[in-house]
């Protein structure tokens, strides 16, 4: 398991390759990349700053991955989240899950993203033509996380 909170960009291909290197028991690798969009809630976004809670962030990401491991057949996983200043088109977050079977890989990858969105202590501040603003939490993200309950 690899968890990293970093300002540097990441390489999806390299991270996927690292999970499967030297192994022949993995049948499925699902990955997700979240990127900065040039608009949000109807306003143009010129820049974004990502703040986090050092220490708690890494712990909460590791806990989310552990929870996914308890629910699905996860052979290995990588979560990388960038912090600092980002621009439209930049990568924000990467989740990669390796499993024997695709259903587990897809479910665990989406679960980790949904939980990361609602539990990991990151905060986005956007620069728009009207000035800077902290991004509001979305109800749709809460609903996405709720669907894994019960």
């Amino acid at each position, binding site marked *: 398991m690899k968890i990293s909170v970093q300002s540097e960009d990441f390489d999806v291909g390299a991270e996927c390759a690292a999970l499967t290197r030297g192994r022949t028991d993995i049948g499925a690798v699902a990955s997700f990349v*979240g990127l900065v969009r040039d608009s949000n809630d109807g306003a143009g976004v010129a820049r974004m700053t*990502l*703040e*986090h*809670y050092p*220490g*708690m962030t890494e*712990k*909460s990401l590791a806990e989310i991955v552990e929870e996914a491991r308890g629910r699905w057949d996860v052979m290995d996983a990588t979560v990388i*989240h960038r912090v600092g200043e980002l621009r439209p088109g930049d990568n*924000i*977050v990467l989740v990669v899950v390796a499993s024997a079977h695709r259903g587990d890989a897809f479910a665990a990858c989406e679960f980790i*993203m949904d939980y*990361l*969105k*609602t*539990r*990991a*202590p*990151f*905060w*986005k*501040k956007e620069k728009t033509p009207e000035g800077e603003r*902290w*991004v*509001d*939490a*979305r109800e749709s993200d809460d609903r996405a996380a709720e669907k894994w309950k019960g």
Partner: protein
Amino acid sequence: MSVKVLYFAGLREAVGQSSEQLALPAQIGSVGQLHAHLVARGGAWQALATAKNLRIAVNQKIAAVDAPLKDGDEVAFFPPVTGG
């Protein structure tokens, strides 16, 4: 006892600081009491009372308002998270 208090994102900006080491009066023993103590400072600290869906972590774990505090704890106040 003494605790470290952290503020993040909009709340950090509202109270004008990111962290402080705080010696607590003897009657403060829970997260909720610490919260009331900080709000009682008035002024910018009202932001802790008016924040929508305020989140609290004790020692880097999400905690409820009735969570007990002990000497050396790290208590963080922050708005709902928006990463990913």
